[in-house]
C-alpha cells in the first residue's frame, strides 16, 4: 500500500499492477482478468492524478469479482494497513474512511442476507457523498473508495456488485480552486426599550432580555441601580456567544428608544464593547476580550 505515496503516476500504476497480480495469483478461480487490469491502468494513466487510484480500484474491484480479494483477504488487507499505519495519515478523512471500511465489514456481517444489499448500497452512497465533500474541501483522496468497496463487497453476492460499482464510478467532484469565502455578516443589533433589550442577529432568533425591574426604573440614580434595572449580564452573555461564532466581527447597531436615559445607552455600549473577564486582545484595543467595540447608534423610536 505504500506504493500509493509515489508521486509518479506511471510508477504508481505499475506498483498497483504488481500488487494486484500477486494478490490475484494467490486466489482461487475465478481470477482477475489481465485485460481488465490493463484497461484499468490505462484509464488511470489518462485520468487526473487525484482520480487515478480510484479508477484503478474501481475497475479492479469489478474485474476481480469473486476473487478472494472480496473475501477475508480484503478484510485482512485493510486491517493490516491500518495497523501498519502504512497509509496516508495526513487526513482525518482518511482515518475516518479506514475505520468506516472496517465498520462496514462488521455491520454487514451482522445483517441477514436479504438486508445486506440494500444496506450496502445505502452505506456506499453515504461514503461517496462524504468523500466528495472532502475532495471539495481540498483533500486528495485515493484508497477510500476501494476500502469501502471491498468492505461492502464482502457482504454481497456477485450479482449485486454492479449496483455498488455504479455508485463508485460516478464522476468525482471537481475540486474547486481555493477561495476565500467571506464570513457571513452578523448584523448584530440591540434595541433598548423601556421594557428591556431585544437582540437580533443574522443567524439567530431574536433574544428578548426583559427588565429585571418592572419598567426598568432607575432609582436611586447610580450605576448600581442602572445595572439592577436592565439585564446587562444577559446582554453580555448573548454578546459573548455571538462573538464566539463570529470572532472577527466588531460592529453592533444600538437602537435606543428616544426616551431612554443616556446612562443606559452608555452602559449598554460598555457591556457590548468587551468582556473584562476574558483575555485582552493582542492589539490592545480592549482591556479585556473585545466583543463589539464599534458602535452604530441608530435613531431609534421617537
Amino acid at each position, binding site marked *: 500500500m505504500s506504493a500509493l505515496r509515489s508521486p509518479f503516476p506511471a510508477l504508481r500504476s505499475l506498483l498497483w499492477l504488481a500488487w494486484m497480480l500477486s494478490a490475484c495469483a494467490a486466489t482461487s478461480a475465478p481470477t482477475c482478468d489481465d485485460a481488465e487490469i490493463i484497461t484499468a491502468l490505462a484509464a488511470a494513466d489518462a485520468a487526473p492524478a487525484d482520480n487515478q487510484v480510484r479508477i484503478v480500484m474501481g475497475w479492479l474491484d469489478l474485474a476481480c469479482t469473486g476473487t478472494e480479494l472480496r473475501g477475508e483477504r480484503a478484510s485482512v488487507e485493510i486491517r493490516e494497513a491500518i495497523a501498519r499505519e502504512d497509509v496516508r495519515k495526513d487526513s482525518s478523512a482518511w482515518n475516518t474512511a479506514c475505520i468506516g471500511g472496517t465498520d462496514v465489514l462488521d455491520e454487514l456481517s451482522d445483517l441477514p442476507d436479504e438486508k445486506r444489499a440494500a444496506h450496502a448500497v445505502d452505506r456506499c452512497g453515504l461514503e461517496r457523498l462524504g468523500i466528495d465533500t472532502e475532495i471539495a474541501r481540498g483533500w486528495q483522496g485515493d484508497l477510500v473508495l476501494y476500502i469501502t468497496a471491498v468492505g461492502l463487497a464482502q457482504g454481497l453476492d456477485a450479482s449485486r456488485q454492479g449496483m455498488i460499482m455504479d455508485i463508485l464510478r460516478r464522476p468525482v467532484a471537481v475540486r474547486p480552486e481555493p477561495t476565500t469565502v467571506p464570513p457571513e455578516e452578523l448584523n448584530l443589533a440591540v434595541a433598548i426599550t423601556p421594557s428591556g433589550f431585544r437582540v437580533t442577529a443574522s443567524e439567530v432568533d431574536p433574544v428578548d432580555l426583559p427588565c429585571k425591574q418592572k419598567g426598568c426604573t432607575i432609582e436611586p440614580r447610580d450605576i448600581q441601580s442602572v445595572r439592577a434595572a436592565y439585564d446587562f449580564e444577559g446582554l453580555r452573555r448573548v454578546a459573548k456567544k455571538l462573538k464566539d461564532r463570529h470572532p472577527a466581527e466588531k460592529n453592533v447597531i444600538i437602537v435606543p428608544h*428616544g426616551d*431612554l*436615559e443616556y446612562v443606559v445607552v452608555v452602559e449598554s455600549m460598555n457591556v457590548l464593547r468587551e468582556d473584562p473577564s476574558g483575555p485582552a486582545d493582542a492589539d490592545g484595543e480592549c482591556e479585556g476580550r473585545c466583543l463589539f467595540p464599534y458602535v452604530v447608534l441608530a435613531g431609534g423610536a421617537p
Partner: protein
Amino acid sequence: MRPMFLILWANLGFADPLEDGKDAVDAVHVVVTADAIAVDGKKVVTLDTSSGISRIKETDLKAHLIEPLFDHLNGLRGETSGGQTPVVTLEALPETRFHVLRAVMSTAGQAELGAFKFVVTGMPVE
C-alpha cells in the same frame, strides 16, 4: 427621516477625565446639562425644561438638526487643521434623554464630526 444612523467609534466611560492638554483641533467637547448645550465651554443652545424633562426647543430644531449647534460646529471646522476629523467628546447627565443626544449627534454628523467619545457626568467612577 427615521431611523437615522450615526457612525460612532465609541470610547466609552463614566466620568472619565478628559484628556487635558489635547490639541483643540483634535477634539470638540460638547456638554449637555439640564438646561443647555455647551461647546468647549461656550453655551450654544438653551434647552426647554418646562415639562421637567430637558428638550430641545422646537424653534431650534429642524428635523434632527439643532441649528444653533450646527452653525457653531460648522464654524469650528475652519479652525481644524491637518485633515483629521476631530473627535467629539459628548458629556451628559445620566438622565439626559436619548432624543436630545440623538439630535446633538445628528447635528455633529451634519457638521462632519462623526466620531464620538461618551462621558456620563454625575456618576461615580468605579
